[in-house]
């Protein structure tokens, strides 16, 4: 099976992404070039220090001076978006958090009961898909990703937001069983988009990895799941999309504020709601390189049609392993066909059974 390179992933971005990849590779090489200091001519030879002090980390930059955010990152974490009901404080002690991780990891490793619906699934641990087998953000001891409101929970939902949720639920019921038609299946099952793509980027069940590549005027974020790509212009070269043009991941524009990349996204099509959001949600993301292995990632949701106030979460990312194997979801999605075929066979059997009964 061919292992695709980033260049091959450029199908969705065409030549542009290839160009960015080439530039980014050059940037990485340049960024790693060591500087050579000339020794002082008349000074006596200095002995090398026996235990050199830890070298102060300096923020790497791309050749055009952008802070270098590039690499493979994961936002996999044991910190929930919202603070659990029983918890009142903002941070766990290290011991408390270790207990949280231990409990979650043992729940993941739990074997299901044979003959139950939960058992009708491959074992996640055999495929390394449980959280504990992959890189995850380790030094974040908070009790919620949400930092504002200070209670660690999303603000109240507006009446309009509640009605929208009820309407969506009613529409799902009206459409019928998920096994009746592919259009009734969740959009992730249909390989359209996954929750973690965002914006905002949020960890989902597994494969919570992203690759960031930068080039002059653009930042590209590759989302592992369903290999979604966000190409974000950062130098005002592109006018904002008109109101009526809507996209699955919205329309993003970035700019630097100091060494923080600020990305504003609007023009979502509302078909992949984030926690019940409307299509007019505005997402503001702030990404910065904290150290060699860490990105800070902060997002603010502004959606007055859904929440009574904007709210903000911090979901840092830690270094992950690359390259990212292409999650070519649709091409391998035998599951949808199998599910529909199985349901139609059951329908036929039921119809035959009913016909026998009436003819008796």
């Amino acid at each position, binding site marked *: *099976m061919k292992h695709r390179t980033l260049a091959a992933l450029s199908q969705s971005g065409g030549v542009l992404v290839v160009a960015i990849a080439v530039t980014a590779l050059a940037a990485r090489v340049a960024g790693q070039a060591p500087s050579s200091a000339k020794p002082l001519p008349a000074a006596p030879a200095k002995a090398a220090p026996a235990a050199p002090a830890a070298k102060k980390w300096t923020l790497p930059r791309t050749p055009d001076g952008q802070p270098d955010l590039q690499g493979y990152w994961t936002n996999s974490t044991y910190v929930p978006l919202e603070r659990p009901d029983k918890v009142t404080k903002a941070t766990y002690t290290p011991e408390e958090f270790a207990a949280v991780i231990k409990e*979650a990891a043992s729940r*993941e*490793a*739990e074997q*299901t009961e*044979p*003959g*139950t*619906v939960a*058992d*009708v*699934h*491959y*074992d*996640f*641990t*055999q*495929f*390394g*898909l*449980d*959280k*504990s*087998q*992959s890189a995850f953000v380790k030094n974040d001891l908070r009790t919620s990703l949400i930092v504002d409101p200070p209670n660690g929970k999303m603000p109240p939902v507006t009446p309009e937001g509640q009605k929208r949720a009820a309407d*969506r639920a009613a*529409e*799902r019921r009206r*459409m019928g069983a*998920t096994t009746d038609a592919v259009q009734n*299946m*969740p*959009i*992730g*099952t249909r*390989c359209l988009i*996954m929750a973690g793509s965002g914006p905002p980027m949020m960890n*989902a*069940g*597994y*494969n919570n990895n992203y690759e960031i590549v930068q080039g002059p005027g653009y930042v590209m974020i590759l989302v592992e799941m369903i290999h979604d790509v966000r190409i974000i212009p950062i130098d005002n070269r592109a006018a904002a999309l008109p109101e009526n043009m809507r996209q699955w991941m919205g329309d993003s524009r970035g700019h630097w504020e100091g060494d923080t990349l600020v990305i504003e996204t609007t023009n979502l099509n509302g078909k*992949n709601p984030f*926690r019940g959001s409307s299509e007019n949600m505005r997402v503001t993301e702030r990404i910065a390189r904290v150290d060699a292995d860490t990105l800070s990632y902060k997002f603010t949701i502004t959606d007055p049609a859904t929440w009574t106030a904007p709210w903000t979460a911090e979901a840092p990312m830690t270094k992950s*392993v690359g390259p*990212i*194997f*292409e*999650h*070519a*979801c649709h091409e*391998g999605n*035998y*599951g949808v066909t*199998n*599910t529909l*075929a*199985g*349901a139609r*066979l059951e329908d036929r059997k039921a119809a035959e059974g009913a016909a026998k009964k009436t003819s008796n």
Partner: protein
Amino acid sequence: MKHVIVGVGVGLLLMAGQVRAHHAFSSEFDVKKPLTLKGIIVKWEMINPHSWFHLEVKGPDGQVVEWMIEGGSPNSLIRQGVTKNSIPIGTEVTIEAYAAKDATNKAVGRNFILANGKRLFVGSPGSPDAPPEAAPAAPDAAK
């Protein structure tokens, strides 16, 4: 007509260790049809969203029947160092599975158990519980 897309919803479909019944696995495979398949792996499609193992099973009549068994996304295993050469063609395996509802030779593999009793990939090179002397597999006959 306003086209309503069914959202992913709060019960995220892929939460490892939770909500396993989601994603229609119990619609695709029959909880009332558990089976144990013993055979050799002749192909592993390392694809997404789920990988598929092709198993040749010898029936009591000596006839060989090919089964297709659904497994997980290979992406995390690949990060752990698993490659297409990690499972040589002909690897013996016993798979505890549930048969597909469409009456074809397909199933979802709950447990993949190797001839030495170990479960597939648990302890693969690079995984947290990898044995210290994880020896590479015999020269592969895989394509």
